């Protein structure tokens, strides 16, 4: 396995293993299309390298040319050649079919889960102090108004949660309210699903517009109860500086 062709093959296999299996250990997995692009670039680089001189070019392309023309081949090599010539057009045909065949999948939805809030809600501070009484009241209000969907355990698994798409937020997940400021929750609870911007697909959200039913004071206390019950802390301005 000393020839340039074998070296190129080993390089491609090594590159694939690295991109597919090693790289995901330190970062997010790469999409198949990106892996393919990198492999194509690797192949192109190898070909440019080996075609820089006549000698290396002959070494590199000689076996390929002999394989394709079938000169002096018999047995396994001859069969492999025929196989390649049959399989390649079939792959092209299959690829054409999968690209053109009608799909049964509905359009993909890229819904933004935490869109930017309107300006008037940015930076609002909870006007009520975090006292045990206020937290207690907030939890009671949460139990009455929020827990049917968001769950008694603040995990988004209330009895009414099944069937909603998008599902109710799981507050115990570090990716939800722990990433948000109290002012953000105030906006989301007050204006509900219908208050979302277009990128968050407001037409799909079952979150009520609580401002028509609850006073602001209750909403602020519900926020306190939510953070306390879910064991999370709101994100603050200080942390962002």
């Amino acid at each position, binding site marked *: 396995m000393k020839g340039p062709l074998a070296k190129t093959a080993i390089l491609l296999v090594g590159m694939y293993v690295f991109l597919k299996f090693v790289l995901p250990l330190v970062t997010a997995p790469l999409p*198949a*299309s990106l*892996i*393919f692009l990198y492999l*194509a670039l690797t*192949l*192109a680089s190898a070909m440019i390298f080996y*075609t820089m001189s*006549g000698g290396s*070019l*002959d070494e*590199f*392309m*000689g076996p*390929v*040319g002999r394989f*394709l*023309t*079938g*000169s002096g081949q018999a047995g396994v090599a001859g069969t492999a050649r025929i196989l390649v*010539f049959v399989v*390649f*057009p*079939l*792959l*092209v*045909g*299959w*690829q*054409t*079919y999968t690209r*053109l065949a*009608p799909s049964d*999948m*509905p*359009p*993909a939805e890229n819904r933004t889960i935490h869109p930017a809030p*309107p300006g008037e809600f940015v930076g609002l501070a909870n006007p009520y102090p975090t006292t045990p009484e206020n937290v207690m009241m907030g939890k009671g209000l949460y139990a009455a108004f929020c827990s*049917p*969907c968001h769950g008694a355990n603040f995990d988004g698994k209330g*009895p*009414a949660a*099944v*069937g909603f*798409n998008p599902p109710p937020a799981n507050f115990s997940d570090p990716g939800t309210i722990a990433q948000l400021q109290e002012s953000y929750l105030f906006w989301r609870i007050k*204006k509900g*699903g*219908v*208050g*979302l*911007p*277009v990128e968050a*697909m*407001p*037409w*799909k959200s*079952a*979150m*009520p517009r609580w401002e028509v*039913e609850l006073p602001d004071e209750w909403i602020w206390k519900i926020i306190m109860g939510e953070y306390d019950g879910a064991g999370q802390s709101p994100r603050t301005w200080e942390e962002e500086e």
Partner: protein
Amino acid sequence: MGYKKIFNVALGLTLMVTGVGASCVFASDPPPEGGAGSVAVRLFLTEGAVPADDPNAAVWNTIQPAEFKLAPQVHWPDRIQEVTVKSVNVRGIHNGQDLAMLLEYADPSEDAADAAAIEFMVGDKMAHFAHGQEMLQVEGGDVNIWYWKKEHGKATDMTAKGFKTLRPQENQNVSATGAWQDGIWRVVFSRPLQTGDEQDVQVTPGEWRNVAFAFWDGEIVDGAVKEKGSQKAVSSWWYFRAEPPPDNSIYGYVVLGIVLAAGFEFFLVRKIRRGNES
């Protein structure tokens, strides 16, 4: 080998390898995930008449249902915390002129006030699934609701854009028939795909549209109907599509692709052989 000849071989080989590679790599991309339950109803294309008035027609049993989980309506007052109908199986069929959708769901008792409804967005504007209620940052559209109630024995074609705006349309295009047996309701709704009525959803084969469902258990409990008005089981928006007619031109393109690939191989080998001879 001369440089030109070698360059041609290299170019051909690159194209071949990248072509095969692309086939393998792109084909291995996983399909989008739908999560629990179904995400879409497929209205299968048939050549015959659709079973517009027959919830027990044999053809329904040949169609794979889509299942949608249902939730109590908690979005606006009067809310309800628990509902009878927990999920619905939906089957669809069309013949290019008319469509029929069969809703099949468990309800232990047959009651006069039992009811079912299908909701659609109308036109191109997105509408909120709760009766097309007002959205604050997005201009929403109307919803078209097909409503069936056991005691009415027929469907009502309705329109809404916001709460308290639900009203029957002037042009009634929808029919519905329900049959209850052994704790299962089977309700079939039908309508022409196209009605020309701008208040109606217009169904074009091949086009994805939004759909949602609602159910009421009309059982009398303590002298009152258990579920009525906004107290109902609801689904979110999902998708449906009337299956388009088969497009056989695809197979023509497949054959063309195979012929072109084989031709490429032939000319590549011929070119290399000629190069070798010279």
